[in-house]
């Protein structure tokens, strides 16, 4: 990838081969400070008019850093040290500040991840759109007409009421459409989209993606779509670049890269993505990517790579052209010789399911005065994993909090092992508190930053079991071993751990008291997909070994398939469907479930 023209040879699909190249990035390198280590390096790709390039990678891979550099911008402390970003033949990085400002918005536009934060809350939608046009006079002839035109193209209502609304009066999907309209209104040549659908539910996400695709096609815009979600990218883009530790490790047509991945990292990522259509064990990637400045001489992926040989550690691999895509790996021949096998998950529930461990009958809950749950019924038999699925706002987290006693404002009946549960934690006996354990969504807030991992894991033994000090320490160490964390973690603090390690600590803390029921609330949504796979497999193994009943709450339908035996679909606080996972996901009887399944992006 030493010349900017290389990707053009790398086989852009025939439909777009004739289209002129709009964006060309050559040898882009970004460093920390004056002489610090590189954050990203050797970035070269080209995007023809009307095409979308997907830039995928896990957190810390440098994908957002590259995306911002396409606008000539770097975050504080970073510096573009070399390379070119040519847009229609003009190098943006060579422009002065004034020229660059004029180009931003007019010729290069950016759609950020969180539209709620990107729109000015004090400006009406119409004013905000007009402002974008006023900043670049001459970009279009008729600003007022252009606003209505671009709103229609972004599939927003063009009514005067819509123009008068404030951002907070719009739904998340509408906000992101306004973001898209703002980006497209000056008819730019390049659009950079930074995870624009993260945080939207699957149906809204699909509609936004359709809009992006059609806008790019009809305007002949080159677009770069940054995402950590491989399934989303797979359905949207013709060409994809996979980033790891600041390098593009594989770039080429999406069908090739995702269909027959050659780089071991791409393979690993794809194996970690759960599929809604098949029940499979997920293969995660152990370890974590090296930080800038801690990347060795050799291949950055070598420490985590199953195909690693000694040469990998000593020499950085140069990109090679294989089967229409460029790959940064010296082991491609051997990687291609092995086929990535996916193993079906063995998911026979061991309990007989006759007397449920947990039984929820007619639960209705209020949040303030707003009803969030009405008449929810649910059973979790011993040793079963029951998934509660729903979009944001469906009430699934409230349901979990009712069960554990954090949300006491409910009516109905919850019985656990035959005994009724009191609504409040403080009215429940300690032994009941011990038997039901809860794992929070975000491991970055669920561990006290001022305590050691040893203290954190041993704590429930003090509160709930009342063990003497020595025994607590021993059991904490054993619990950490059970989640594959060594004894040296005992004395560490949470901020010294990665997200995946933190979530393992949270799991160890829940399991150290030997509960009978484990409630997992979106436990993987804050984690990268490769880590998610590791955590899910860890949970599945522990559930089997410890004979746990499990309530798995998630918005991710694909994940349900891999872990649960039984699924309950929640919508607006009502159970719309419930049954064995395969039946619910494959033959949904409820229209809502069917639509959810249809909108899930698939690889």
């Amino acid at each position, binding site marked *: 990838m030493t010349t900017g023209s290389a990707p053009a040879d790398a086989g852009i699909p025939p439909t777009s081969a004739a289209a002129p190249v709009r964006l060309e990035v050559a040898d882009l390198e970004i460093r*920390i*400070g004056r002489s610090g280590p590189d954050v990203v390096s050797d970035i070269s790709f080209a995007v023809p008019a009307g095409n979308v390039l997907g830039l995928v990678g896990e957190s810390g891979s*440098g994908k957002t*850093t590259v995306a911002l550099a396409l606008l000539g911008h770097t975050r504080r402390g970073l510096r573009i040290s070399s390379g070119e970003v040519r847009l229609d033949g003009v190098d943006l990085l060579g422009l002065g500040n004034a020229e660059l400002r004029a180009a931003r918005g007019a010729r290069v536009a950016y759609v950020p991840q969180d539209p709620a934060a990107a729109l000015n809350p004090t400006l009406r939608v119409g004013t905000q759109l007009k402002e974008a046009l006023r900043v670049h006079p001459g970009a279009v002839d008729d600003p007022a007409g252009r606003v209505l035109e671009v709103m229609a193209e972004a599939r927003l209502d063009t009514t005067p009421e819509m123009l008068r609304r404030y951002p907070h009066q719009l739904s998340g999907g509408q906000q992101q459409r306004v973001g898209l309209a703002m980006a497209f209104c000056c008819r730019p040549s390049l659009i950079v989209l930074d995870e624009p659908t993260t945080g939207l539910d699957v149906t809204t996400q699909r509609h936004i993606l359709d809009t992006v695709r059609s806008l790019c096609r009809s305007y002949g815009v080159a677009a770069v779509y940054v995402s950590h979600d491989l399934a989303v990218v797979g359905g949207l883009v013709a060409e994809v670049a996979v980033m790891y530790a600041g390098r593009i490790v594989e770039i080429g047509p999406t069908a090739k890269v995702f269909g027959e991945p050659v780089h071991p990292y791409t393979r690993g990522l794809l194996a970690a993505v759960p599929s809604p259509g098949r029940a499979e064990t997920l293969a995660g990637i152990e370890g974590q990517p090296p930080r800038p400045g801690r990347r060795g001489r050799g291949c950055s992926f070598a420490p985590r790579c199953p195909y690693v040989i000694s040469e990998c550690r000593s020499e950085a691999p140069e990109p090679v052209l294989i089967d229409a895509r460029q790959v940064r790996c010296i082991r491609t021949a051997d990687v291609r010789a092995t086929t990535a096998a996916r193993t079906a998950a063995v998911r026979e529930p061991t309990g007989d399911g006759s007397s449920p461990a947990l039984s929820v009958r007619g639960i209705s809950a209020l949040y303030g005065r707003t009803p969030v749950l009405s008449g929810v019924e649910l059973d979790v038999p011993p040793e079963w994993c029951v998934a509660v699925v729903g979009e944001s706002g469906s009430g699934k987290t409230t349901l979990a909090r009712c069960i*554990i006693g*954090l949300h006491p404002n409910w009516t109905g009946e919850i019985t656990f092992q035959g005994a009724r549960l009191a609504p409040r934690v403080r009215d429940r006996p300690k032994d009941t508190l011990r038997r039901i354990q809860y794992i929070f969504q975000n491991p970055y807030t*669920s*561990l006290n930053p001022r305590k050691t991992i040893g203290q954190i894991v041993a704590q429930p033994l003090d509160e709930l079991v009342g063990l003497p000090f020595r025994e607590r320490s021993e059991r904490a160490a054993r619990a950490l071993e059970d989640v594959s964390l060594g004894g040296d973690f*005992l004395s560490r603090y949470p901020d010294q751990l990665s997200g995946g390690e933190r979530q393992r600590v949270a799991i160890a803390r829940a399991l150290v008291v030997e509960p009978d029921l484990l409630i997992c609330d979106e436990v993987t949504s804050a984690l990268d997909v490769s880590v998610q796979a590791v955590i899910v497999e860890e949970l599945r193994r522990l559930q089997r070994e410890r004979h746990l009943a499990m309530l798995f709450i998630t918005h991710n339908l694909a994940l349900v398939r891999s872990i649960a035996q039984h699924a309950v679909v929640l919508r607006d606080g009502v159970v719309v469907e419930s049954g064995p996972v395969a039946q619910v996901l494959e033959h949904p009887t409820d229209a809502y479930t069917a639509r959810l399944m249809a909108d899930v992006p698939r690889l």
Partner: protein
Amino acid sequence: MAVAAPRVPPAQARETQAVARHPWLSVLRTAVRTPRGAVGLGLALLVVLVAIIGPFVAPHSPDALMTLTFAKPSGNLPLGSDFLGRDVLSRVLNGGWALLVMAAAATALGIVVGAAAGISAAYRRGRADGFIMRTVDVILAFPQLVFALLLVSVLGPRLWLIVIAVGLSHAPAVARVIRSATLDVTERDFVKVVELQGMRPAKVMAKEILPNLISPLMVEAGLRLTYSIVIMAGLSFLGFGQQPPAANWGLMINENRIGLQLNPWAVIVPAALIALLTIGTNTFTDAVARVTLGVDRRPEEAALTDDLGLGR
């Protein structure tokens, strides 16, 4: 905390100690390395040193009548004499420690009471919150000095009373700040985790929440110490602190101001020492606040920890 903690092998403990075990220590260390922090701490330590070793190196007794009133500086009396003809240098060297001890005690009292009130208000919410914060509002409505004067003038100028009066007058402002900091911490999931274990509220506040308030507490302590010094000196100046013939910087300013034109050093030196001390503590506090807020980090460091999401 030591009882509940699994014992850690010493070698490993040492490794992580500076990072998180004593977060206040690492913050202080970073603050001292900034120019602002070094200057502030230097000034404050200079004055503290004068106050502590002063009594041992003073050339004369602070109470001895040496010469005429308001004598100009001479070889025997480097800073001249005061309104009774006592050695100004010896009185300056003796007059600091009482001020410092009282200011420190009042600060400690104010921080402890204020933090306890702020944490309970924020954690318990509801009626306790309303009661505590409305009380705070009422006390805050009085100017701090007037509040202290009121107590002292009603109950008499006893030193322990002054410490309590000044300490309590700090508590409301501390409670305000700590309450809002606690609200942030209480929202985090690790607090819910221990609630789900049925932990008693007092223990949740002391063992889970308090350790996460160290940064705002340090900043508050520095700020309140500065105010304490000013108020203590002010009370002494007004005659409500230590009583004559005690040597006290605030008192000295008052006693000697009539002779300002005859021997200005008797006023200037104690005033300058008080000024240096407050400027020093305030500057150092500012440095600590900047460190805890991350204002003074090098951009490279900020890039690594914030932007790349690696330092979470």
